[in-house]
């Protein structure tokens, strides 16, 4: 392997969607045996570049050279034949097929007949290699987002590629899985594969990348070896302005009175014996490995999949919550981790999504929606959260991931919750926006809202939380004080050591 030569050379690529110039005159080169990080704010055009490289979308202008030869990539199978594979930002599994088949279904060279035995064996080997524990025979429909992501990774790796693209693969992984993924990525690099890695978690970028390319508003700003980049310079290039205090260190909020308490919450066989109190203005972090059933606890509290025993007491009222409506009445909001399938009505407008959970407030005579008030609210949130969109009637589905996240945030803030459960609140959000979201979470807490923050981003949990509840395989391992907790203490609990 001749490390140093460009396997993939992107030259002067441009791509326009009806309203937005997603990419303009972008050139990037990928070398064999390097891990190349691509960073940029939400909507900078990162995913668009990936989609073009994998043939899902076609560029308006520019060309792609593979080992010096221009190639035309018109669909994913073709990309595969050139040795390019990608893990997409939103996992794309086939829910009805089992895990093993998901890994192998798109292999071009698998012949006419399916050899099931071999597929199961190979799948087990690959997953073991990655250190992922999954039943290869269970259908993908029951998998968590993280597990789906793992399947996608396994799929890409099984292809023996020359270029492996990963679009925010770590967004729904916790640090344990992340380190496993990184060791795989490094091994591939050492085998001469060019890895293109996209992430909003800058620590990760610095940890793994050899070179870093920055995009901003569809333009390439720079490409530099990691040694020549500092955290500050990187953020400045991404955001285009001086940014002083990202990741402000933890400042303890004043803990108010107790407003709720969860006792012995159990849902067999998923989780059992969850106990904690919630206080006004408190941020309670929920940490754990992927699949530790944090989401399920959140869903039980919000009433989507009610628990079967235990009690939820809020403002003195004790009951088990059986539906999201009951939860909403008690002032609980839950922002899902899967915005694509569960969070947003993609073909609807931004405004309609923002008011969806609180539509009752906007109903006038005969249940007719007062659209002017609706628009006003949406406008306010656009300002407050800096949602980047040409107009509020824009389809949410056409926004970039980060901006979609902001819309979802607005939707729940607008219900004015007393208890706000955030499931991976900064998933897919860029540094700038992430800091804003953190700031916002703190402000909400200051206003007296109790916040329950489920996150796989450990630094985020540490920096935000007043207390940290750690889960492992559906059991509560303990609650740590935010001030005294650190990576090691949380991980020790999460891994059961």
């Amino acid at each position, binding site marked *: 392997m001749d490390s140093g030569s460009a396997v993939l050379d992107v030259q002067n690529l441009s791509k326009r969607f009806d309203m937005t110039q997603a990419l303009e005159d972008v050139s990037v080169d990928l070398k064999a045996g390097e891990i190349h990080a691509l960073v940029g704010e939400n909507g900078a055009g990162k995913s668009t570049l990936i989609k073009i490289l994998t043939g899902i979308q076609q560029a308006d202008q520019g060309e792609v050279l593979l080992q010096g030869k221009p190639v035309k990539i018109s669909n994913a199978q073709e990309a595969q034949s050139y040795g390019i594979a990608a893990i997409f930002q939103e996992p794309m599994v086939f829910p009805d097929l089992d895990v093993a088949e998901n890994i192998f279904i798109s292999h071009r060279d698998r012949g006419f007949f399916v050899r099931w035995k071999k597929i199961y064996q190979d799948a087990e080997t690959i997953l073991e290699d990655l250190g992922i524990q999954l039943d290869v025979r269970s259908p993908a429909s029951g998998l968590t987002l993280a597990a789906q992501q793992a399947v996608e990774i396994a799929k890409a790796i099984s292809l023996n590629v020359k270029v492996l693209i990963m679009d925010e693969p770590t967004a729904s992984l916790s640090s344990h899985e992340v380190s496993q993924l990184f060791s795989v990525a490094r091994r591939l690099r050492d085998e001469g594969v060019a890895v293109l890695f996209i992430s909003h978690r800058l620590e990760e970028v610095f940890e793994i990348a050899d070179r870093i390319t920055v995009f901003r508003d569809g333009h390439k700003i720079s490409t530099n070896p990691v040694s020549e980049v500092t955290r500050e310079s990187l953020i400045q290039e991404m955001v285009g302005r001086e940014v002083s205090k990202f990741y402000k260190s933890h400042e303890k909020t004043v803990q108010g009175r107790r407003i709720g308490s969860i006792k012995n919450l159990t849902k067999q066989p998923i989780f059992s014996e969850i106990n904690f109190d919630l206080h006004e203005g408190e941020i309670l972090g929920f940490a754990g490995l992927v699949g530790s059933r944090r989401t399920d606890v959140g869903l039980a509290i919000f009433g989507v999949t009610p628990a079967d025993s235990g009690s939820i007491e809020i403002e003195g009222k004790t009951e088990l919550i059986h539906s999201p409506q009951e939860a909403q009445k008690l002032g609980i909001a839950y922002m899902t981790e899967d915005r694509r399938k*569960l969070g947003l009505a993609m*073909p609807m407008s931004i405004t309609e999504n923002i008011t969806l959970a609180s539509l009752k407030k906007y109903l006038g005579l005969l249940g007719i929606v007062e659209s002017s008030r609706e628009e006003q609210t949406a406008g306010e949130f656009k300002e407050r959260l800096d949602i980047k969109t040409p107009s509020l009637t824009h389809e949410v589905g056409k926004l970039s991931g980060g901006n979609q996240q902001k819309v979802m945030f607005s939707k729940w803030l607008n219900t004015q919750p007393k208890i706000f459960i955030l499931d991976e609140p900064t998933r897919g959000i860029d540094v700038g926006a992430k800091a804003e979201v953190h700031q916002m979470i703190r402000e909400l807490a200051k206003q007296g809202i109790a916040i329950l923050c489920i996150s796989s981003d450990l630094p985020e949990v540490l920096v935000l939380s007043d207390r940290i509840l750690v889960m492992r395989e559906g059991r509560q391992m303990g609650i740590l004080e935010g001030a005294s907790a650190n990576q090691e203490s949380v991980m020790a609990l999460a891994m059961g050591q």
Partner: protein
Amino acid sequence: MGWEGFLLVVLLLIICVNSFNSLAFLTVENQVNLFVLSVEKIIIALIMTFIILNAEIDLSVASMMGLAACALGWMVESGTSTSTAIGLCLIIGLVGGAFNAYWITIVKLPSLVVTLAMLIGFRGLGRVLIEDRSIRVFPPWFENLGQQPILGPLPLSILIFLVLLVIAVVILQYTGFGRYVYVIGISQEVATYSGVRVARVKTILFMVSGLISALAGILFSARLGSVRGDMGLGFELDIITMVLLGGVSIFGGAGSIYGVILSILIVLYLRNGMSLSNVTGHIQTGVIGVILILSAMIPNIKSWLESIFDKKYAP
């Protein structure tokens, strides 16, 4: 231009051709008749629009129509007063709709399966009530209601249609309930996770569908003056055709009631025009079939043309 615009153009075209073809077409009598002949279908098409937008389907509407009509005949025959019987039939509609809703929202079976079974089941119940008879027992006022004009040239059934139409437009396009119908159609999960009472919305829709179908069955009995077991047989496909031609996506969440109104007019005018030119039934059905397919292809052709245009002339 949009889908509705396209339908409008088609509609105007049909109207031109028709009035050119037959002098009888534009007469008030013909215009009223052509609505009266299909009024039951187009009433049900309104609620079917809601149900399809909600990503569900109700195949049992025509059978419910038959059941309500049979029940009406059976009750009146066995001595119930006609007005009481009408009330009871509407309740039967609600109960039948609730029955569908139970299996769909609580047992969680696909509506296609449930209503396919009840397409057989409701029709069967109607048959149980009146077997192989044709019942003709209605008082004159009831038949007059179905056959005589009560406002200008318009009979009651058309007035009911117009009122329901206005209600449907308002609810679907302007109220919160209408918004929920769309959201659930786009994604039931998103709606659930946003605290929308999905089961309740669906239950309401299916109950109203039962109610409206029963109403249509009653209007049908009044118009025809008698009831039989096969009333409305096969109407469900015509009704669904109208809704789909109106641009409502079978996968839910997309389309509008305006499109459905236009497609209703297109289907009725097209059929009427062909009838007036003595085109026989099966050719008419075939033509509607072709129109349905062609119309669904137009948006693709349009976007294909646009993409060519864009490529050539984009700045």
